[in-house]
């Protein structure tokens, strides 16, 4: 102690000591552990990003999620900040978060501005239904949790899975015509371009049977007949809302489609199918295999 307190040698050595001890700590411990024992507090307002938090093993930092965070099951047990488009500024701040993470679909913007102006880091990922979107989500969660290295490792794993899936898809001999039906409410909606469902169909080596419009439209019998889908893709929630597969096929709009004859229906749980989270490579591979068999 006495040696380093002499003015002539103290500064450089002390600096060096400080630097090495910092570097040592950052190699040995995750970032949140450096700033004391208190883990960072994260609020996730995106189902996919909640999945990333769990994939990084950072669920102890997750203080609340939105109503779309349904997977894994533990995510349903966190405090809920409501629907992602109707957040409450005071509600978010009452959780004393270090970071609020979500997609650009979160809102209202006024509320997010208020949260930002209270000094909370708000990180929104642009949702454009591409593989890059998943990467951005992983990166932002890694940054918010102070787990950049773990995020990069997860990204590498996911990229490998994705490459394998894309190779498998590229080898397929044919591209089935697929039509996505969403019917969580009374009128079933069919997906055109620029939707998450459209992106999944294309990634999985299918062709979207409906083109010429963006977004969702109500399903009509004539449009279904002219679209002539070979396979119907839907979410398990949609089928449940209809009261099961048999009831679903009884819908008159489906009777004139090629898919109807073979009862070619592929379903997947909605957050896995459309969430664009870390389960996307799995989802795409599964859909690819199923639409070829259906």
């Amino acid at each position, binding site marked *: 102690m006495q040696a380093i307190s002499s003015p002539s040698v103290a500064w450089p050595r002390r600096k060096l000591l400080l630097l090495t001890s910092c570097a040592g700590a950052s190699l040995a411990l995750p970032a949140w552990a450096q700033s004391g024992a208190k883990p960072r507090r994260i609020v996730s307002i995106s189902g996919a990003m909640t999945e990333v938090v769990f994939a990084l093993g950072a669920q102890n930092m997750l203080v609340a999620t939105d109503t779309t965070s349904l997977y894994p099951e533990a995510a349903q047990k966190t405090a809920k900040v409501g629907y992602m488009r109707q957040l409450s500024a005071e509600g978010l701040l009452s959780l004393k978060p270090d970071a609020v993470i979500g997609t650009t679909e979160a809102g*209202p913007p006024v509320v997010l501005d208020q949260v930002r102006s209270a000094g909370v880091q708000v990180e929104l990922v642009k949702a454009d239904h591409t593989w890059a979107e998943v990467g951005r989500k992983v990166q932002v969660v890694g940054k918010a949790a102070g787990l950049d290295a773990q995020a990069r490792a997860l990204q590498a794993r996911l990229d490998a899975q994705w490459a394998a899936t894309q190779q498998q898809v590229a080898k397929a001999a044919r591209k089935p015509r697929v039509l996505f039906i969403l019917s969580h409410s009374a009128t079933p909606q069919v997906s055109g371009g620029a939707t998450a469902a459209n992106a999944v169909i294309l990634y999985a080596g299918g062709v979207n049977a409906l083109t010429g419009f963006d977004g969702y439209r109500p399903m009509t019998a004539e449009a279904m007949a002219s679209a002539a889908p070979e396979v119907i893709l839907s979410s398990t929630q949609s089928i449940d809302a209809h009261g099961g597969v048999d009831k679903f096929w009884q819908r008159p709009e489906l009777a004139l489609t090629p898919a109807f004859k073979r009862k070619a229906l592929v379903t997947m749980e909605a957050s896995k199918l459309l969430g664009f989270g870390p389960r996307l490579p799995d989802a795409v591979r599964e859909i690819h295999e199923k639409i070829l068999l259906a």
Partner: protein
Amino acid sequence: MMARWSARTVWLAGLGLLAMALVAGSAQGAYAISPAQLWHVLRDMVGGSDNPTPEHLVFVNIRLPRLLLGVAAGAGLGLAGALMQGLFRNPLADPGLIGVSSGAALAAASFIVMGNLWFPDLPRALGSWTLVSMAFMGGLVVTFLIYALAQSQGGTRMGLMLLAGIAVNALAGAGLGYLSFLATDEQLRNLQFWLLGSLGGARWSAVVLVGAVVILACGAGLTLARPLNAIALGEAQAVLLGVDVERTKRWAIWVCALAVGAVTATTGMIGFVGLIAPHWVRMVAGPDHRIVLPGSALLGAALVLAADAVARTAVKPAELPLGVLTAFIGVPMFLFMLRHFRGRV
């Protein structure tokens, strides 16, 4: 039977109720602020503070503008309701009758659903200024349409206006239905939230704008108290008493349209306040508009503040829609009053 309250009692009770609602609202919220911390925040606001605490930031930037917007919204809706019931001489009248709410709703819905086709570059989210100004303009345009339809022989005929209002409101409702059919799932959710009303988008700029409109509306509205008292005896009687009936109608309609338009455009639909606040005041204080108009504004403000306090805290950290709560809280109290004062209705 209780005696009718005097003007002074109504003012005192109204201001007292409003002050209580403000104090209770200041202390309540998802973000816990203890009375001691609140006291510090208030002291810092007066004295200025270099290093604001998180409680300070939350209170000054989020809770206070929201409380004040609630006061402005409730006062605007209460006053407009009293003006409309006086003008139509009909206890069922509410500000929606002249089309301002349905016009604002239709414009907001068009913007939420069709905005990305018509104005791809403008911000379309809930609470954006483009949505607010569209809704405000929509309310005024539809009110003007109904007003124009009610013109006959150089005057405004209230019977015609009532029917035209019902018809145009039905048309706007059909438009809303069609838009919700076109809407995607997300747009439908946005639309639904807008129709249920919320003070969540409160920021100081909105408070200043809506507050200024409502203060002007209250000032103008109070000058209409005497003419409305005369009109209560019948339009012909009012003319004999020397009241410019046509001018009173014009002023009442446009004061109502501006106040309700500004409120609805920033908060969405907050139902029921405009209908019940005036009834409530009339039950305790009689039909004199010099008492009913200010009383309805004060009571409306207190009612909205009370409902919003529940909206902010009941399901924290999420939030309940305000329009649901104004009815949930207002209706039972209204029914109780109805039974209690049934002799005077």
